[in-house]
């Protein structure tokens, strides 16, 4: 593995990437949009951390902030720090930040067309990416681009390298973008809805590719998605986001088999399942997600919550450990949620 190994020799090794108390707010005409409001998580080598939530819950903004892609203004960052192997990214000089972002942390977007420039050949774009972070000749970079295209499973890489993005199908474009993200052997891959725009059969191809790459390179993957099926099959640990906050965090089994937050419970109950013959009526969550400019007082989920009582109103519930070492939920009634879920399952 290349790159600087800045391992803290004293104490427990720092996580590969850690986000601490991140807040990202946007000043808009209709108020301050608290897109991300006190989010903390970390991810280690070879691990897949999923961030799951409905659209507008702040998933993308939190990921883009890590890469410094959120324009300020309108964004402000009232608090938060980002650590790469224990070193604060934000306290580094600008130049070094830029170097680490993109080489050690890379991002895959939902829409490859936003990441690929339509007027340049795919191969040249990947080579360019190699050359911004590594001191190599044009020829070497091009050679590397060719290898990468082969590695992500693009047939005929020697031909494809000289084609433009529009000559690629949706799945191929996504592969090309993954190749670009891998150009500098990143340690962390932020994948923002990498398969949302794709068909399930292509999704299976892309996810299989990501799994293989992770195995080969021991990369950490932060998988952002709204699809609970994808999360169940690929995530080791899961953060559930609602209205700019993490409301529940735990292993995949903890989240799916013993949810402790009413929102997680609601999501799981509302899902139709392909492996079950006609279920009874679906149990939707009532209402719609709140505007992040006017998040409800107290628990932001309470207006939609079937468990809510007056106890949910005075303050925002903190993420508190529930059972299990790493399992935590920000729900006043996590015990009642647990009981309700068990009853539902045994039914």
């Amino acid at each position: 593995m290349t790159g600087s190994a800045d391992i803290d020799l004293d104490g427990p090794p720092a996580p590969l990437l850690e986000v601490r108390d991140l807040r990202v707010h946007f000043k808009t005409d209709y108020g301050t949009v608290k897109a991300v409001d006190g989010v903390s998580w970390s991810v280690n080598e070879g691990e897949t951390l999923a961030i799951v939530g409905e659209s507008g819950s702040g998933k993308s903004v939190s990921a883009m902030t890590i890469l410094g892609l959120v324009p300020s203004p309108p964004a402000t960052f009232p608090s938060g720090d980002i650590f790469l192997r224990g070193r604060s990214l934000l306290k580094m000089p600008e130049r070094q930040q830029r170097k680490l972002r993109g080489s050690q942390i890379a991002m895959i977007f939902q829409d490859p067309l936003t990441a690929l420039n339509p007027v340049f050949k795919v191969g040249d774009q990947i080579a360019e990416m190699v050359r911004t972070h590594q001191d190599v000749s044009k020829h070497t970079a091009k050679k590397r681009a060719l290898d990468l295209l082969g590695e992500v499973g693009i047939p005929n890489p020697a031909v494809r390298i000289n084609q433009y993005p529009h000559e690629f199908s949706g799945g191929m474009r996504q592969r090309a973008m993954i190749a670009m993200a891998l150009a500098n052997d990143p340690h962390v891959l932020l994948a923002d809805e990498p398969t949302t725009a794709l068909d399930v059969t292509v999704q299976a191809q892309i996810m299989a590719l990501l799994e293989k790459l992770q195995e080969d390179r021991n990369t950490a993957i932060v998988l952002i998605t709204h699809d609970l099926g994808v999360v169940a099959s690929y995530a080791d640990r899961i953060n559930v986001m609602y209205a700019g906050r993490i409301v529940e965090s735990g292993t995949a089994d903890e989240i799916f088999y013993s949810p402790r937050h009413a929102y997680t419970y609601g999501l799981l109950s509302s899902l139709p399942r392909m492996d079950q013959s006609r279920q009874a009526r679906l149990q939707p969550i009532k209402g719609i997600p709140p505007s992040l400019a006017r998040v409800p007082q107290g628990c932001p989920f309470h207006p939609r919550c079937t468990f809510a009582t007056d106890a949910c109103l005075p303050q925002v519930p903190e993420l508190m450990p529930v059972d299990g070492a790493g399992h935590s939920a920000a729900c006043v009634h996590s015990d009642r949620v647990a009981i309700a879920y068990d009853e539902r399952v045994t039914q």
Partner: protein
Amino acid sequence: MTAAAPQGGLGTADAARQPMLEVRNLVKHFPIRSGVFFKRTIGQVKAVDGVDLNVYRGQTVALVGESGCGKSTTARAILRLLEPTAGEVVLDGVNVTGLGKQDLRKARRDMQIVFQDPYASLNPRMTIRQILSEKFQLLGQEVNRKTISDLLDTVGLAEEYADRYPHEFSGGQRQRVGIARAIAMNPKFIVLDEPVSALDVSIQAQIVNLLEDLQDELGLTYLFIAHDLSVVRHIADRVAVMYLGSVVEIADRDDLFDRPYHPYTQALISAVPIPDPRLERRRERIVLRGDVPNPANPPSGCRFRTRCWKFEQLSESDQRRCIEEPPPLYDVGDNPGHQASCHFASLREVVRA
């Protein structure tokens, strides 16, 4: 292209009944044109290439498949929002394909559509009231305040919404407006073209429930188009799987999910992740090679053969059969009405294995 007589029904009990909707050998080709001044046709996109379907009264038939396989085109050709290239559509005894302009407009009362994109399917410059009233006016029926408020109530919207513009609504609410427009004046048959695909998970369930309730209350017949197989398993009575313009497998719901016969259906189902981590760790995924071929130039013989996992395992002479001979819809399985268009169709469990 179908050899076996296309069977529709939901088992034998329905076989005697007349279907609400009958689609016979529906074809829709789009000419590919080129030229500067006057365009010449240089090819055909074979978007829909011989589809047969029966939908019985009060039933929901789902049409599933990957994007570009021709689902929306099939739906639009059925409703004659696109003129079919060939084929016949009969709705409750009326031959829709044969109707003249005036009669077609009258027939629109009976057949309606809900679109996928709640942001694009409502005119941004009309209020909800104007959008809903337009249908009554065009199809010649009195409309008053109460008509609209009742209609909104049916789809779970309050009347004070009526004088707002679409942009003031969330996606789920707009989709309710789209549904209200479709169910107004009691149509017999409704196409739902991916009605929940653009919505958030928690909202999807609200809309699915609404659609089910309306079907019960009004006795509606649905053609439900989707690529999300989980929703299909929940809502459909019967499922048709499309690939590159044709139906490759059709069966009653549980038959299709629990006992799929076509290699494509099997791959499609196996690719859908199920929100159950332990089950997912056990499941084996069939990962298909490559991309869907260009519908302007589909493969010879079986259209799926370029990506078929079973094809790879066949002997050379069997492979030649796939290459040369288009497979008809064979009867498969133990239950009537289950057909798959594969020369080597065989059962493979994919949901739980």
